[in-house]
């Protein structure tokens, strides 16, 4: 159910309304279709990214965060700006609940980014939060981050992705007062929650964060910064292991008597005489985004950690 080439925002909104009318066409009992909307989610992605995989991931977010979804696909080359609109309801495989999603896709060459932004801005659902998900390395390479900042009340990046903004740029966003989220930080939530429980009644002195490879990934650096800012009297260090999977966190050692081993899908540690396991399914991008979309406010713990890294 898609229509091409609608570039006036009011025309796009009209088409969206028409799609909902089609979907809500009485089918005998005369019940109208109603949907909830909790925010506008605008995703900037590079055109090379597989559209069906990306759209499926974004659509799955609608289960927890029913949103107006706008995807801006950016490409190099010719002067291009186009849009299409769709709305659909479906039941994901294995689920009982029907998901309804309204979707606007804008395709633009990077040199038309400002034009694309001028189309996207009025499409936001009124009175509701706007979140921008930045997956496009083109925007970062073009140094055009500031052009998309006004479109969202919160901007989410993933430092783990190639071409993501660096810590310096993220620090700049914080300095300018933008609400910022980083999925590399979000990945740490279950680990941080468990560490917070395990360390609650301890006076930890030496904490070593072990990671794979020679260079610490963003998660390891965030974890170090978080522990160091929360426990200023402790000495928190990073230790790489060239033999282990590159960039991967695989353990946290606290003094000589607590070792938390991070393994696939969980964490193992000993408490008393018993070995314990906590379930930590590897966070998919959908799960991480579900967490991150849950609040559009300043995340003070994240901001302290990021400031510590960039200081």
């Amino acid at each position, binding site marked *: 159910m898609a229509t091409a080439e609608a570039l006036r925002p009011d025309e796009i909104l009209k088409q969206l309304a028409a799609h909902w009318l089609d979907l809500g066409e009485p089918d005998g009992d005369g019940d109208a279709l*109603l949907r909830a909307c909790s925010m506008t989610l605008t995703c900037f992605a590079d055109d090379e990214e597989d559209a069906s995989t990306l759209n499926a991931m974004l659509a799955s977010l609608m289960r927890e965060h029913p949103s107006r979804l706008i995807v801006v696909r950016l490409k190099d080359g010719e002067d291009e700006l186009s849009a299409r609109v769709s709305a659909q309801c479906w039941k994901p495989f294995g689920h009982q609940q029907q*998901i309804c999603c309204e979707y606007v896709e804008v395709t633009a060459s990077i040199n038309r980014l400002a034009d694309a932004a001028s189309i996207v801005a009025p499409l936001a659902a009124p009175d509701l939060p706007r979140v921008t998900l930045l997956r496009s390395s083109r925007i970062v390479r073009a140094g055009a981050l500031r052009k998309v900042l006004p479109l969202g009340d919160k901007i989410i990046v993933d430092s783990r992705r190639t071409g993501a903004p660096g810590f310096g740029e993220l620090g700049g966003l914080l300095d300018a007062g933008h609400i910022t989220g980083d999925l590399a930080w979000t990945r740490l*939530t279950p680990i941080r929650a468990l560490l*917070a429980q395990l360390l609650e009644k301890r006076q930890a002195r030496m904490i070593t964060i072990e990671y794979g490879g020679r260079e610490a990934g963003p998660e390891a650096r965030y974890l170090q910064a978080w522990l160091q800012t929360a*426990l200023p009297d402790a000495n928190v260090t990073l230790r790489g292991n060239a033999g282990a999977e590159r960039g991967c966190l695989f353990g946290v050692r606290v003094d000589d008597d607590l070792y938390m081993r991070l393994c696939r899908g969980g964490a193992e540690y000993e408490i008393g005489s018993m070995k314990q396991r906590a379930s930590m399914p590897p966070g998919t991008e959908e799960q991480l985004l*579900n967490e991150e979309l849950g609040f559009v406010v300043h995340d003070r713990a994240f901001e302290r950690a990021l400031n510590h890294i960039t200081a």
Partner: protein
Amino acid sequence: MADSPLHDPLRFHRKTPPCAVVIFGANGDLTKRKLMPALYRLAYEGRLAPGFAVIGISRTAMSDDDFRSRMKESVSKFLEDSPFDEDLWRSFAQSLFYLAGDVGDPASYQRIAATLQKTEKDRETAGNVLFYLSTQPSQYAEIAEGLGRAGLAKGQGWRRIIIEKPFGHDLASARELDVRIHAHFEEEQVYRIDHYLGKETVQNIMAFRFGNGIFEPLWNRRYIDHVQITAAESIGVEGRGAYYQEAGALRDMIQNHLLQVMATIAMEPSATFSSDAVRDERSKLLRSVHIMTQQEVEENAVAGQFGPGRVGGQQVAGFRMENGVNPESVTPTYAAATFLVDNWRWADVPFYIRTGKYMPKRVSEIAIHFRSAPLSVFHNTDSPGASAPNLLILRIQPEEGISLKFVSKRPGAGMMLRPVSMDFNYGASFGERSPSAYETLLLDAIVGDATLYTRQDMVEASWRAVQPILDVWATKNFTFPNYAAGTWGPAEADAMLARRGHTWRRP
């Protein structure tokens, strides 16, 4: 963890303290179907503290490993909307222990004390203990006394005791139970569980009423004509005939679950969302329920019992033919009552409550019937729906959600009106998994939040409200069965509403 510099209130769940959960009746249905799956699910979500243990108690002799193996079978069978993780189970199972014992034998409590001491050391449970009484109600007082005499009601950490309903079988027995429990436990240690209050939608009633400003001005006798609360079950007594025969619909559903729902609908806003502030308001409402005279009971309460009928395309037997049921039983499997609330907000607004077994479908909902518009501007138009009053439906199960019915103009020439429904479905709008009532309530008890638990004054107030009905029914010669399985109950229930010019809504 609120004071811990590592705490992150934005992202972390509420802090759960370490503790041991001691379950009496560990080999029973409730433990297998609800409690253990709920505890496992809490472990899966990382909601339990690392220092955690479960000690199961029942009469059956079995080893820790036998108990773990039975619980594994139950959890994998009854876990809803969740994957079963073998690795996690292996770790979780290490925290399960079992003791065979008779609750009437003082030596059992000495063994419990010794096991608790050991788990406190081995599992670092910090001396915190939650006792869960999932036994026959007749054993509640005996267990509380046994725990008290063995010195287990107090300890280094906190001690709490969860009691399943029914809390007594009438006002006098509820008071007696309370006295025996309070001889050893303080009121703030006692958690009386009413799993209805743990349901997400019942909690949502509070969010709906007190999180939105637009409904409160309408929430009174001036705008609300009457309220209907329905809890219909499409099944019979499912092998619980012997228990049910002693309880009946009024005791089983109305005295506890449905009066609590009514209190949530009708209570005043609390000043804060603290446990006692919310419960004070619920209690105040229950204490304002008009106590019926004998004559009023005759007019405002209806008992029913199902006879043979067809449900879901199948012929089913009547209640008196169920296993374990007296063939001449006069136990009501259906009860309906009209309650009035003696306060300024609700004076003369009837709250109709009904519940029954073998109704045409399983549905629990609250219907708020608003008064009709004061002047029917459209009465001359050819619109049968023009005068339909507004209706707000709060659905508890099966499709949790809220519907608002209002009148709209049909498109086209002329002024044809018809009622339409604006429907908000929690499931379709928020796909996030809702925790089961037992997950919510167990976690609340572990963190010491009693907001969703009933207090003794609430229990007594709701017994006071139904006691006149029980007294009248105890002396009455019912002609049962008086409704066929698969129907909406006896005709007298329709007549009860008709006396006030109302009809039951068909859910």
